[in-house]
């Protein structure tokens, strides 16, 4: 009899003893003697994994890896294709000609320096205005504001992030441009207008990421600072901001990427004069605006030069993402080294004479008293600050609060502007009618259908790949070089300016694949935009599922796929859904990508190969033509309502998820 059988036997005897005196129930072995033996046997031998399960788990893993590699392939393809299309820049124009100052395609001059200067000027100005506003707003929301105010203002910031750039451009064109024109005497097109608009546009990016950084500062450290008599400003300035420094710098770099890559808003307000900027109110052009402007009619060397500009933009954004990664990994390494140094500080039991031989000894008391006296006398040497601590604190609190108020006011202003002007336009005929005349009269029904059509298609393409790729990264992959590389690739993909994706989409889907200007081409290009957004949020969502929940499932004998599909994904679902919905919001409002992939002719799409005109493109064209501003306002309002609805829906999902997790 083996050990386990003995134990079973003993257990049964004890069990029987307990039942002594009671009417003894029939024991299982009395009825089926063989079954007991079978049980004992299965307890001895470990079952081998059956082949089908093994193959299934393995295939699933490979499928997930494939999805992850698609993201990498997209990044590589975009670069290679754009580079290939720009080859004539190197062979025919030459780098010297490309990096010269005259941009005059009709005369054979393809120098981009003036455009680079325009991009730099616009970006730097936007950062100078936007960064203090955004960081101040983040500090206000995380350190100063009451919870209710934080909730309201951070919703405002999220909504600002959701508003499509074509609406910002429209706002800049109709509201800011006339004001600046009046003040400066010019037309109001130029860098100054772009600064203001871009500053507003980068605020949400920088604020949200800075808030993450500020919130991840250990609250204990904050409390420690307060408990030593630091004012709020001293705590923010000396403890919280230094601790969040890396995250805030990263936020600013990413905001900078956003500003450099922004196309539509800039296109509508910089004036599009490809010359070196001579004043901040004179028309200029940027790399992105020039691509969007020339794309439609360019050919030959001119076309190659545009792709060359795409390569430049691509390299800039990949470089910025690289910088962020280097900063982050360096600071993580430094933190690790600081908390686990090569030579830890040894603990010692023996006390020095100065520290007193023991707690009870009178000399310890004496040492304590003399130390205390010395400290007191040194503290007495402290200088009185020129401005009282409390005055500084009050002033700085006011400055930060102002940043929060300004941000909210801007949102209210933009939304108010669109709603007040657009609301009278919204009639059943406007929504369900067909455009008339030069497309500026009548309704906008085909553009609504086109927009929804392409968005649904893009979501269908992007979501499965993105979610499965994220599952691979978070659950299956060895956290090594490959995963790091895939993450770098997705981050890059997320920061590639959308006009570059538009270029790529045009070259690959419209021309090379022969899909023409169509829903399909636009949806594929938009899927590239959505892919990294969904991947990132899904991966974060999966990672935030606590490990012990997984261990619990493994402990019950679940296979990897069972754990992922039954435990992890359901737990992460609210955040994944939020990510998808937000990505959909981005896709609806995207203009630069669809401009040259879907076409611009008004058409009611039926098959995926039909072309059409999306709402953002319609708005852009209406605003530029200026024939019927009423229709532009109406389109802007409908577009905004759709996107804000998606954003609010996303917030609702994530809030409900958080409530369910709270268990109450």
């Amino acid at each position, binding site marked *: 009899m083996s050990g386990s059988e003995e134990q079973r036997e003993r257990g049964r005897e004890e069990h029987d003893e307990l039942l002594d005196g009671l009417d003894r129930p029939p024991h299982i072995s009395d009825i089926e003697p063989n079954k007991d033996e079978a049980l004992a046997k299965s307890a001895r031998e470990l079952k081998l994994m059956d082949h089908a399960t093994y193959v299934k788990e393995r295939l699933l893993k490979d499928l997930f890896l494939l999805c992850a590699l698609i993201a990498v392939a997209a990044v590589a393809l975009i670069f290679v294709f754009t580079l290939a299309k720009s080859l004539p820049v190197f062979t025919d124009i030459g780098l010297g000609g490309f990096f010269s100052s005259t941009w005059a395609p009709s005369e054979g001059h393809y120098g981009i320096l003036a455009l680079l200067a325009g991009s730099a000027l616009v970006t730097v100005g936007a950062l100078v205005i936007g960064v203090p506003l955004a960081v101040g707003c983040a500090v206000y929301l995380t350190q100063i504001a009451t919870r209710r105010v934080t909730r309201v203002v951070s919703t405002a910031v999220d909504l600002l992030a959701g508003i499509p750039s074509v609406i910002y451009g429209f706002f800049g064109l109709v509201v800011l441009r006339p004001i600046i024109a009046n003040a400066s005497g010019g037309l109001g097109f130029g860098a100054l207008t772009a600064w203001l608009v871009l500053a507003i546009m980068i605020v949400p990016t920088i604020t949200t990421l800075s808030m993450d950084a500020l919130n991840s500062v250990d609250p204990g450290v904050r409390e420690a600072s*307060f408990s*030593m008599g630091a004012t709020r400003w001293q705590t923010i300035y000396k403890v919280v901001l230094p601790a969040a420094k890396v995250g805030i710098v990263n936020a600013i770099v990413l905001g900078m990427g956003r500003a450099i890559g922004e196309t539509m808003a800039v296109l509508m307000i910089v004036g599009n004069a490809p010359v070196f900027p001579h004043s901040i109110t004179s028309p200029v052009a940027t790399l992105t605006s020039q691509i969007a402007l020339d794309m439609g009619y360019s050919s030959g060397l001119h076309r190659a030069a545009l792709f060359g500009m795409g390569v430049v933009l691509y390299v800039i954004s990949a470089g910025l993402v690289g910088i962020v990664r280097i900063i982050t990994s360096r600071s993580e390494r430094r933190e690790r080294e600081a908390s686990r140094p090569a030579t830890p500080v040894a603990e*010692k039991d023996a006390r*020095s004479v100065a520290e*007193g031989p023991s707690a009870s000894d009178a000399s310890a008391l004496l040492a304590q008293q003399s130390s*205390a006296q010395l400290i007191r006398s040194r*503290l007495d040497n*402290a200088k009185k600050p020129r401005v009282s601590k409390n005055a500084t604190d009050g002033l700085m609190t006011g400055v930060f609060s102002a940043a929060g108020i300004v941000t909210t006011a801007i949102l209210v202003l933009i939304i108010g502007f669109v709603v007040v002007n657009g609301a009278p336009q919204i009639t059943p005929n406007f929504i369900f009618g067909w455009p008339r005349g030069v497309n500026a009269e009548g309704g906008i029904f085909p553009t609504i259908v086109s927009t929804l059509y392409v968005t649904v298609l893009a979501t269908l393409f992007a979501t499965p790949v993105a979610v499965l790729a994220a599952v691979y990264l978070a659950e299956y992959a060895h956290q090594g070089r490959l995963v790091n590389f895939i993450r770098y690739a997705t981050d890059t993909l997320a920061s590639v300016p959308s006009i570059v994706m538009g270029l790529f989409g045009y070259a690959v889907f419209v021309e090379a694949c022969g899909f023409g200007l169509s829903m399909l081409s636009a949806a594929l290009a938009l899927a590239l935009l959505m892919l990294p957004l969904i991947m990132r949020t899904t991966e974060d969502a999966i990672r935030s599922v606590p490990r012990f929940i997984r261990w619990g499932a493994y402990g019950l004998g679940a296979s990897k796929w069972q754990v992922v599909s039954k435990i992890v994904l359901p737990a992460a679902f609210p955040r994944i859904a939020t990510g998808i919905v937000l990505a959909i919001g981005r896709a609806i409002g995207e203009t630069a990508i669809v401009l040259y992939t879907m076409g611009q002719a008004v058409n009611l799409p039926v098959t995926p190969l039909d072309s059409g005109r999306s709402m953002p493109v319609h708005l852009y064209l209406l605003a530029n033509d200026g024939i019927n501003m009423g229709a532009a306002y109406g389109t802007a309002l409908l577009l905004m309502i759709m996107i804000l609805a998606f954003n609010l829906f996303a917030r609702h999902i994530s809030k409900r998820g958080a409530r369910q997790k709270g268990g109450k």
Partner: protein
Amino acid sequence: MTVYRHAPKNPQGEGIHVEDFNFWYGDFHALTGVNLDIAPRKITAFIGPSGCGKSTFLRCMNRMNDLIEGTREEGLMSLDGNDIYAPGVDPVDLRRRVGMIFQQPNPFPKSIYENVAFGPRLQGVTSKSDLDDIVEESLKRANLWKEVSGQLGKNGLALSGGQQQRLCIARVLAVQPDVLLMDEPCSAIDPTSVQKVEDLMAELAPTVTIIIVTHSMQQAARVSDYMAFFLQERAGEPATLIEYGDTKEIFSRPRDPRTESYITGRFG
């Protein structure tokens, strides 16, 4: 009613005096009718089961609860005869005089030197030699000097948990507080380090008033001169002070049956 026995007398009005103190988190009435006097330069322990309001009460003593939204208090709490909740009182200055040590050691992610120099710098000490003196003496008082004297430039996070807690004590001592509040200072560090922190408390007691919140009755018995037992009798109702007095007496002859059942282990 609270059972008092040999409540410490403060003829000069020194120490902390609390009269009919109530505290609310929003709508939730957390503490009611607390009356007690804390003896200056002694160690007082607050004990009681989880959620009995002892940490809340401790945080009222340097107005850390001001940092939480929607809190409200009623009644009198005074330090050396001055009402700390009187209008116009600067909580920032109060916190300098009433320092606090937390459950989780929380050194700033800066060097050991900068951690200790943080408080004095806030107060406007700029001379390098003054700061050097303060850092050295504070670390000596916290029994950490010998371990770190050659490596003041190291990051505070490089220390072990117990060392970090003593660094936090040194950091508070550097602003010369009159009172030291300790919120379960030993619950996140290893047993050897607990011994060191307890020794240190005994050494500091003759020069600083110490109030410690602890879950461990053994610790309360080992370190404290006086003891206060808090209890929330029913969920949703405010907690209050049940019994207060000399530690040894409470442990040997608790007068309130609820105190007795807690120290013999019937409550959480």
